[in-house]
């Protein structure tokens, strides 16, 4: 019977729970879901990670290729993120070109990478104006259950930490490249951005780490990305208005989450090195 009620009147179903200060999945309002991070599981990529936030699952694979730097920035390589929401992950999506949602999320991730400077494009240059690395960072969503950006950023950081690039002998006069696969180096990572998503329910209740149902029913959504103590990105696409105090409350909550995720990444990396 509960299932029927949920299907027919989802908002009321939620409100009935929320008046009792609990969410339908049993969480408190400000509780985040359990997170799991697994790195280096795909060895066809140069770096990879699988992140789970609750049931949301994201695979991130990083593949490096050679390219020529842009004329304006001869000493920089490229980082090209793309998020794919395949029909496999939710009945909402169809196969074909990326949906609007995928495009928006891809852009957010690209902005986060750029603003957080977790990877310096200068580190990706092999020979100025001639040869550079291009890192294709592909995210594939396997299970879509809300808070996608959080999972993506976590997977990204996990994957970046596992990236190793082979050493290259480059002869600029002949344009000859020789790759030594035996000698691989880690990519320097300069910072670790951490993201947290919240939704505003009925203009007043704040729920942390929303599931997909909560994202669909909410009146507003906000994603906060922090890099240590620095604010790195806030994404709030319309919805219920916020007061300044509320905003700081959110930021405080996301700050508390940061060390947790940091530890998780470290632990995952330790596991792989064992």
């Amino acid at each position, binding site marked *: *019977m509960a*299932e029927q*009620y949920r299907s027919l009147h989802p908002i009321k179903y939620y409100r*009935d729970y929320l008046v009792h200060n*609990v969410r339908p999945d049993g969480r408190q309002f400000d509780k985040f879901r359990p997170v799991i991070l697994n790195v280096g599981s795909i060895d066809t990529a140069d770096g990879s990670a699988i992140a789970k936030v609750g049931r949301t699952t994201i695979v991130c694979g990083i593949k490096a290729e050679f390219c020529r730097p842009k004329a304006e920035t001869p000493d920089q390589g490229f980082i090209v993120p793309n998020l794919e929401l395949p029909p496999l992950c939710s009945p909402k999506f169809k196969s074909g070109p990326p949906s609007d949602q995928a495009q928006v999320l891809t852009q957010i991730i690209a902005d986060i990478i750029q603003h957080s400077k977790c990877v310096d494009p200068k580190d990706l240059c092999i020979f100025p104006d001639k040869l550079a690395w291009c890192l294709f960072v592909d995210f594939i969503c396997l299970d879509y259950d809300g808070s996608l950006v959080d999972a993506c950023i976590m997977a990204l950081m996990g994957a970046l930490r596992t990236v190793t690039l082979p050493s290259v002998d480059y002869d600029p006069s002949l344009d000859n490249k020789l790759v030594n696969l035996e000698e691989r180096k880690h990519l320097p990572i300069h910072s670790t951005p951490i993201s947290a998503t919240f939704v505003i329910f009925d203009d007043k209740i704040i729920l942390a780490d929303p599931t997909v149902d909560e994202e669909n029913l909410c009146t507003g959504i906000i994603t906060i990305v922090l890099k240590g103590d620095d604010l790195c990105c806030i994404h709030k696409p319309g919805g219920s208005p916020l007061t300044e105090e509320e905003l700081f409350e959110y930021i405080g909550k996301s700050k508390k989450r940061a060390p947790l995720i940091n530890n998780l990444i470290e632990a995952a990396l330790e596991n792989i090195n064992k």
Partner: protein
Amino acid sequence: MAGELLICVPGQRLCLCDKVYTSGQGTYERQGYIYSQLAGYVDIVEKDGVKIVEVHTSGEQTVVPAQGDIVTAQVNIITQQYCKCYIKCIGDAVLRRPYRAVLRREDIRATEKDKVEVYKSFRPGDIILARVLPITEAHTYQLSTAENELGVVIAHSEYGHPMVPVSWTQMQCSKTYVKEFRKVAKVVPENINQQRLIKRAELVTE
């Protein structure tokens, strides 16, 4: 209880198909045997001396509406001739993907069909119980509420408050006491209520 159940997987041969045992829901018959179609547990129903072998899934079964099924639907659009709705449940089974359906004016009521007005029977957002009519060439399902037990079960007044039935053609707003016309279903009372479920959730969190 679980220990006594006979668990089966698709394609599992269950028993001979003879005068005593016949193939029921979730099974099929091939060359004198009954096989399972689903992963689930076996249930044998006795009826008129015949044992019907059925298989039920433990989770949700994949079903599509069929002729004669009672479905729960949500009204989406009304016009003078028909109303369009989405089928959300078939019997007790909740659908993840709603199916489109049409309820024509002449199928709303069993009597005085020519006097029926769609807008006096349903409004967008109403939850109705309806029966699936025979499936024609057309792609959408056709529904009927021409039975006493079928019609609107949950509705909200113009002001957004829940309404309670006052007769088989009228419902009353619980806050404003304004009466609105509906084709009301005679609801057989249900005994599980929402409060209990919430209690359960609290138990889990504690």
